[in-house]
């Protein structure tokens, strides 16, 4: 009996030691713009990355993830340098990146170093069509376009004025939407603007006096939206709705610009106040609030999803002993998982096959999901404008 007890104890000890020997800490690089023009979105994504590491490390039990972050200062050359430095510090994969012009060279550098690179910060389709083998992204222009077109179709809009920044991602989306609307017989007039401009009154005045459209679609960033909405508030064009895309239907915008946001639409995955009904969502929200003492936003959500998918792929590859043999990218390719942003599966080019965004509207102090009907948390107020 004594021998059996000793043998059992030895077996348990060996099992524990073997498990410890297999449990590894993996370094994942986060290349993010924490300063420069993209600092805000970079900081938002980093919050999601850190929350994912926190949730993964608490819940996985076996493998641990250590995040090493390098600020790429919103500059392509610095983004490349960041990836190379992260690789030299032992990173086995990269999560992050914001802005297609930064992600493109950075992911090229990662590709040369055979590091998987996953992002939600670049919607330029060249990113997935240029033959990068280890590149993955969870969102794309097509998903934004579906949300915008779906909402406009529900509104029954016959004419749309599109105001868009000449940056690559915004131009791509605006041109794509304009073509799709024209194909449906909707009159779509486009007004491009240089990202440096601050006075949008001359553009809005053209919409007021010439276009006389039913809807204004804004494809830009937060500072552009504020400028356009301000100009619209002054000139009061005869529109029925104002729609934007990213960074607009957010609690932050509602809190910072309460007078400009009422009835404005924007893409959003979550209503506000945020509600999570899945275990994954609840874990994300709890960890986010614990770490950052605020409500989670879409940037954090995207950063969380992309990072969690990567960490899970690392864990699976580690279990198979293939981390250093291209196993992480292999596991990412096999991903088929329901996430906070919907089902994620990567196609041969690394793009998420299933991405469809949702459209929300600022209603009072809340943000209500109004499209698609299957995810709606309320009805759209239409016609509805901020003034």
């Amino acid at each position, binding site marked *: 009996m004594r021998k059996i007890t000793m043998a059992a104890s030895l077996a348990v000890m060996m099992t524990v030691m073997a498990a410890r020997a297999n449990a590894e800490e993996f370094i994942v690089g986060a290349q993010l713009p924490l*300063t*420069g*023009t993209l*600092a*805000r979105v*970079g*900081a938002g994504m980093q919050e999601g990355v850190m929350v994912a590491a926190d949730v993964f490390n608490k819940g996985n039990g076996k493998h641990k993830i250590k995040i090493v972050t390098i600020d790429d200062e*919103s500059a392509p050359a610095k983004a490349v340098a960041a990836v190379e430095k992260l690789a030299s510090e032992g990173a086995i994969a990269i999560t992050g990146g914001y802005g297609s012009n930064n992600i493109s060279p950075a992911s090229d550098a990662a590709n040369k170093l055979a590091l998987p690179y996953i992002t939600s910060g670049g919607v330029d389709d060249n990113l997935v069509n240029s033959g990068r083998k280890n590149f993955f992204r969870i969102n794309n222009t097509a998903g934004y376009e579906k949300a915008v077109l779906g909402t406009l179709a529900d509104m029954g809009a016959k004419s749309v004025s599109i105001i868009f920044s*000449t940056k690559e991602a915004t131009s791509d989306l605006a041109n794509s939407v304009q073509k799709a609307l024209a194909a449906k017989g909707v009159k779509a007039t486009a*007004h*491009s*603007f*240089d990202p*440096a*401009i*601050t*006075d949008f*009154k*001359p*553009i809005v*005045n*053209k919409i007021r*006096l*010439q276009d006389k459209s039913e809807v204004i679609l804004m494809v830009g960033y*937060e*500072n552009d939206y*504020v*400028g356009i909405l*301000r100009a619209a*508030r*002054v*000139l*009061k064009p005869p529109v029925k709705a104002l729609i934007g895309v990213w960074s607009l239907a957010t609690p*932050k915008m509602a809190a*910072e*610009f*309460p*007078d400009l946001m009422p009835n404005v639409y924007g893409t959003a995955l979550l209503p506000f106040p945020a509600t999570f009904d899945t275990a994954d969502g609840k874990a994300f929200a709890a960890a986010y609030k614990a770490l950052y003492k605020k409500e989670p936003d879409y940037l954090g959500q995207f950063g969380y999803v992309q990072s969690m998918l990567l960490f899970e792929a690392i864990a699976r590859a580690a279990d198979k002993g293939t981390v250093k043999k291209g196993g992480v990218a292999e596991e990412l390719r096999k991903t088929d998982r329901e996430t906070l942003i919907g089902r994620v599966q990567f196609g041969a080019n690394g793009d998420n096959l299933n991405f469809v965004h949702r459209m929300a509207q600022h209603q009072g102090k809340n943000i209500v999901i109004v499209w698609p009907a299957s995810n709606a948390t309320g009805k759209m107020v239409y016609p509805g404008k901020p003034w």
Partner: protein
Amino acid sequence: MTDLILQALYSGLLQGGSYALIALGLALVFGTMRVINLAHGELVLLAAYIAYTVESGLGLNPAWAIPIAVIVVSLTSAGVYGIVSRIRKDREINSLILTFGIGVIMTNLILLIWKADVRSTSSSWLQEAFVVGPLYSMRGEAVFFIVSLLLMAGLWWWLSRSWYGRALRAVSSNREAAKLMGIPPARTELVSFIVAGMLAGFAGVALYSYGVIQPAYGGALTVKAFIITVLAGVGSIPGVLLGAVLLGVAEALTVTLASSALQELAGMMLFLLVLFVMPNGLMGASRRRG
């Protein structure tokens, strides 16, 4: 079409006033010391963030931030002078590098203190429409356009009538000769930096009152101010107003008659055209006479 063009001219005029207010401080320092303060945009931005703090923290209209912004920014500007004045060789070139570095440090300090979020006034009063016949603007724009004109008139008066103003012009004209006339060049230059800081204080509060601010915005403000300063003709205060208004109107007309994507290009074309035809800038000749 007439309505469109009239509105473009009006918007351009107001935008020009805003540009002029931003450029005044840079033009003053450039005119007197031949130093291009590449941290000037960050000084304007600092004032804008002070206005944001006063509004969000104390719930006051941003205009109440003017005294604090003017004091803080002029002291910061004096600090910049303190560093620049230590340059012993090739001041024109070395000051460029030095002030660029100061600008980078200031941008990052602003980022650390106020974070990267987009900020703008929430004052309804400043944002409401100010309508003159068929012309529309924000009330804040109209108010600060008038402030801009008053400040320019005050600066012009100060430079032409006060002892320190004339001393500044003397140092600008010939530093050594001014010294022989009993004018202390270092103190005079410090005064020009302090006055430039005060003007940047006003400009920042104005910018926050009708525009949008972000920590990385300082560089763009400096570039715009520099273009106007060169366009104006070195040291010319009326030239700053003329250059700024021309730039604002050219940009607004480009948006109205062509595309807003071409607005920055139109501004640069105007800049190159003026310099090609008038190498000393719009008011360069009058400066030489002065």
